[in-house]
């Protein structure tokens, strides 16, 4: 068993465990913390795949920004879960579980069966190459995403602002 495999197993276990915890923990804050750990582990997987730039962005954006955002979101709303009614019905949960399970089974069957040519020399991307692509082939998309961010920014402000008295 290679070192990479060991790392993969550890990181993969963390990702799955933490994401399961996100769904089953009681306290919202714990759930969000668990989510942050999952994101960290995913960043580790990126490093494992020699996509360091993406890994760093993952840590900065998800672990740094998004998690904090969620914590703010949690704190500004009903973090003590006062206004909650009853849970989803068992039937609903069971149906969801079955549906998702079938989906997962289908995908896993295909994914594990698929025969990809083994590639022991991972392709190593660099920030430079990504930059060249972004400002070359994907320039229009990149500008579009910029506009999207701007729109999201203003939209978020407008939505979250208190109504003028």
């Amino acid at each position, binding site marked *: 068993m290679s070192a990479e495999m060991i790392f993969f197993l550890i990181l993969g276990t963390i990702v799955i465990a933490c994401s399961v915890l996100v769904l089953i923990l009681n306290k919202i804050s714990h759930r969000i913390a668990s989510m942050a750990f999952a994101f960290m582990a995913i960043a580790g997987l990126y490093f494992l795949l020699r996509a360091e730039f993406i890994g760093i962005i993952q840590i900065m954006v998800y672990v740094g920004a998004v998690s904090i955002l969620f914590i703010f979101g949690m704190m500004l709303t009903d973090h003590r879960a006062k206004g909650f009614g009853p849970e*989803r019905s068992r039937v*609903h949960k069971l*149906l*969801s579980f079955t*549906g*998702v399970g*079938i*989906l997962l089974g*289908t995908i896993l*069957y*295909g994914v594990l*069966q698929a025969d990809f040519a083994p590639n022991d020399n991972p392709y190593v991307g660099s920030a430079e190459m990504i930059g060249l692509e972004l400002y070359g082939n994907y320039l229009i998309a990149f500008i579009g995403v910029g506009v999207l961010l701007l729109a999201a920014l203003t939209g978020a402000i407008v939505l979250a602002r208190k109504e003028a008295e």
Partner: protein
Amino acid sequence: MIQNAWLIPLLPLAAFVILLLGGRQLKQAAPVIAIASVAGAFVLSSVVLMERIGGDTFAATVRWLTIGPVDVTMGFEVTALNSLMLFVVTAVSLLVHIFSKRYMAEDGRIHVFYGYLTFFTFSMLGLVLAPNLLQLFIFWELVGLCSFLLVGFWYFKKEAADAAKKAFLVTRIGDVGLLVGLVLLFNATGSFEYGAAFAAVEAGEVSGTMVTVIALCIFLGAVGKSAQFPLHVWLPDAMEGPTPVSALIHAATMVAAGVYLVAVTYPLFLASGTALTVVAYTGAITAVFAASIALVNTDIKRVLAYSTVSQLGLMMLALGTAGYVAGLFHLMTHAFFKALLFLAAGSVILALHHRQDITRMGGLWHRMRTTAVTFLIGTLAIAGIFPLAGFWSKEAVLAAVWANGDVVLITLAALTTVLTAFYMFRLFFRVFAGTYRGDVEAPAENGKTVTVPLIVLAVFAVTAGFVHFPLNGYWLEGFMTAGLNYGDQAHGGLGLAAVSLLLAAAGAGLAWRLYGKGEESGMQEKVPAVHHLLENKYYIDEIYAAVIVRPLMTLSRLFVEVDRWIIDGAVNFTGAITFRTGRQAGKQHNGQLQTYGLVSVAGGIALIAAVFAVRGYFG
């Protein structure tokens, strides 16, 4: 003049248009205009008749309707038959117009009345002048319309409105038959023209069955219009119209149109023995049947109406037994004496302030001498007493029946002769003899405009028979059948004349014995069952109501329910199903995001499954 015969109907039409547009302003001038126009038409008709007697048939046509390669034409034609009819129609019409001036004087809508009357005259003249069956049918229908309008002239009376409707509907049955007949004739021969169509029939281009069918269809039209059994029911009811109308339309002219129709299409009937037999039997049955009802009826006009039906039956009988001239001769004389009888009845009714029940009359002989005398002349004429018009024509009819030799027909004809004399004299005695039983103070004559037409008609009723009697060698026959091949016309000898006279005298004598005093005979008590049957007109109306009208109405109501509950029900049911489905489907939209998501997942899985099922996992 004969080239301009088309002017004859146009004169009354012009009067009609004037009265229609300006009647309300004209009011008192309205009768004058109408009378003048009809007088003009009468003069022209007389001239045309004279010219035709000395000359030949004239015809003119214009293109009217193009059906593919075929041109249907309209126009006019002056033949022996219709020149005579022109004269009769305009003469009677003129006298009725004059008579009406007094009869309708109190009516506020006299201009409308005269409008209808002139329109009727126009239609009848148009019918007579028609050179083809289609044009005849057109005017045939217009005549029917006029009858409807005039019967229903007092539309505010329920009986009048009902009678008008009945008249129109019952004759409509006949009209439809005629329409089918002429359509079949056109399809078989390619023409509506009398000449062309009959030539095709005579040349054997049409199968025998087809000729019979066509002839019977046409005869159905005649049955309707001439009130023959079983479509006679409308005519007695039509007496709800003003009396001059009854005289003009329901006695002298329009109802005679059926006979006229059979006469103009005579070649068709000659070509089909079956049809001729049907005509003869229908006529004979109608004659006896109607005469028997007239025996007991107590309404002065209805008695005359049944008498008309009976006489028309005689004409049909004559035509059906190859008595072409006899039938038409009787038609002509009948026009005069029946118009006379009706107008005289009108005079009585007018004097009695519109009471028509003969049980409330009697003893009018001394109070209304002119009317009484002219009525007597009419009675004698219709009964067939020598030497009045009716004698000659009835004798001609009997001769035709005798020559035909069918015992049943001969019996029926003889019976009719007796019955006719009987009921007519009964009527005469009940109205004029004995003592006055009415409640109107001092009934009296109604002035010159009433009596003059009576006198003129009485003169005709006496003399009209002399156009066709042995001493002038049956002149009418020579005139009418010149150039036509309708077979030999039978002539009765002295023997037949004597028998006919005897029969009539027997009927008259019986009437004198029973009703000579003008009082009730007591027949009601002696034969109550027969009396009841006759009084209720053999329950024909009731039978029609039960067999045709009520089932039809029930069927229609059934259709309404079917329409509402089954057909529209199916539509509404579909609508309701759609609506309910929509509402149920709408309820699935519970606003729960996660339910939607779950359904989407299920959909996705189904989609994947479908693809896998078709193509396998890895394609």
